[in-house]
């Protein structure tokens, strides 16, 4: 059946929708491209013959028209194109969300699932994002990925969820972080501690 490989690709995409990024399926993509090229070649030939018979005008009615064949092949080419583009597009979106959830450095097993172009895209996206984050937030950069909700207060009430020991806050005082102890610290410090899962925020 025409474009069945492309459909396989989409089914694979559908199955992996809620999971981590599967390996880039280069073989199936190659096959799809070959199929599309082959269909295009055949169509090109048939269009040539159609044009020729039209100019000759001799056997216009006797030979069966090739138009249906051409239009079906054309539809198949478009279909393959659509599937391939959708495949790349969805992977791109996933890679983007990886940058926001995991961070600038991908673990090895994830890197192996990306194609060369995707790795390049990831590093470019990374650069764009980090240069943007450097440019905002007055003089020091602002990490947009860590806390996406703007702080409501200057200070925050936090509760320790592990024994950490002494911790120096940004204003220089040293606080003892022991299990279940509660502190009232600057929001920036609180963010830092929450991010590292040392403390949790009490509302």
């Amino acid at each position, binding site marked *: 059946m025409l474009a069945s490989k492309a459909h396989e690709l989409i089914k694979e*995409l559908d199955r992996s929708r809620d999971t981590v990024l599967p390996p880039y399926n280069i073989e199936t993509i190659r096959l799809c491209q070959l199929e599309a090229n082959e269909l295009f070649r055949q169509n090109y030939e048939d269009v040539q013959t159609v044009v020729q018979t039209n100019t000759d005008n001799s056997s216009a009615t006797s030979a069966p028209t090739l138009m249906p064949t051409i239009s079906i092949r054309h539809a198949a080419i478009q279909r393959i194109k659509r599937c391939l583009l959708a495949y790349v597009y969805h992977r791109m979106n996933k890679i983007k*969300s990886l940058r926001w959830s995991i961070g600038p450095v991908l673990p090895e097993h994830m890197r192996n699932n990306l194609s060369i172009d995707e790795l390049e895209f990831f590093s470019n996206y990374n650069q764009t994002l980090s240069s943007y984050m450097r440019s905002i937030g007055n003089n020091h950069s602002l990490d947009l990925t860590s806390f996406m909700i703007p702080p409501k207060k200057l200070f925050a009430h936090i509760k320790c969820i592990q024994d950490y020991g002494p911790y120096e806050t940004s204003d220089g005082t040293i606080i003892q972080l022991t299990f279940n102890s509660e502190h009232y610290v600057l929001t920036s410090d609180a963010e830092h501690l929450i991010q590292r899962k040392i403390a949790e925020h009490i509302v």
Partner: protein
Amino acid sequence: MYEDYFSIDDILSTQERIRCQLLVDIPKLGFLESSSATATLNDEKKDHADEQNFSSLTANTKLELPYWMIYSICNCKTRFASLPELPLIYSRIQRQIFAADASVVDLAKQAAHFYRQGRHLLELNFDEKRQVAMTLLQTYQQRFRSIMDASFHLILSSDHHHHESMKQQTGKFERQEKILLMLGQAAFRDYDRLVNNETKQMLPPKIQGMTTDLTNVLNGGMNRKRKR
């Protein structure tokens, strides 16, 4: 046809096969007719396989083709194929079942893309178009209540029994209904967070990452809804 070009659901729903009858000869594409091709392939030798590939589909053969192919040959100036036959799930008998009680039909099993596929189908020309459209609408209206119920009540607990009953109730939902359910649950959860004054709480980034994933899903759902 390409209202959401990149949507996985849309691509999958346009892959469903529909029967139709050809009106003209289609040269060189004999291999599309799977039944005859395989039958003769077994009889003849493999050498003839190439020949088989270039044989033509003759007029009046009945074929099962994917929707996208049907669309391309039915909706052009010179029609190549007759009116398509309705897939079983939209047939008259099935429509009567929907009319009787739409909520009992297991759409997840019978037609995972019921609404989408139906909507695509309406772009083709066939006799019972109006009835099919009405069935789609009424089915949605009847089933909507159970979706809403499920999204209000089947959250806020993680125990096993609850999970099972949720599976039982939402097992019959098709794709679009599941997206709707997820939207409803997320909205309900957000409302709950707001009421409990939890929106101000700062959370470690891991959970935040999950919520962004969720918002991606939600945005996708929103777009779909808006386009409908």
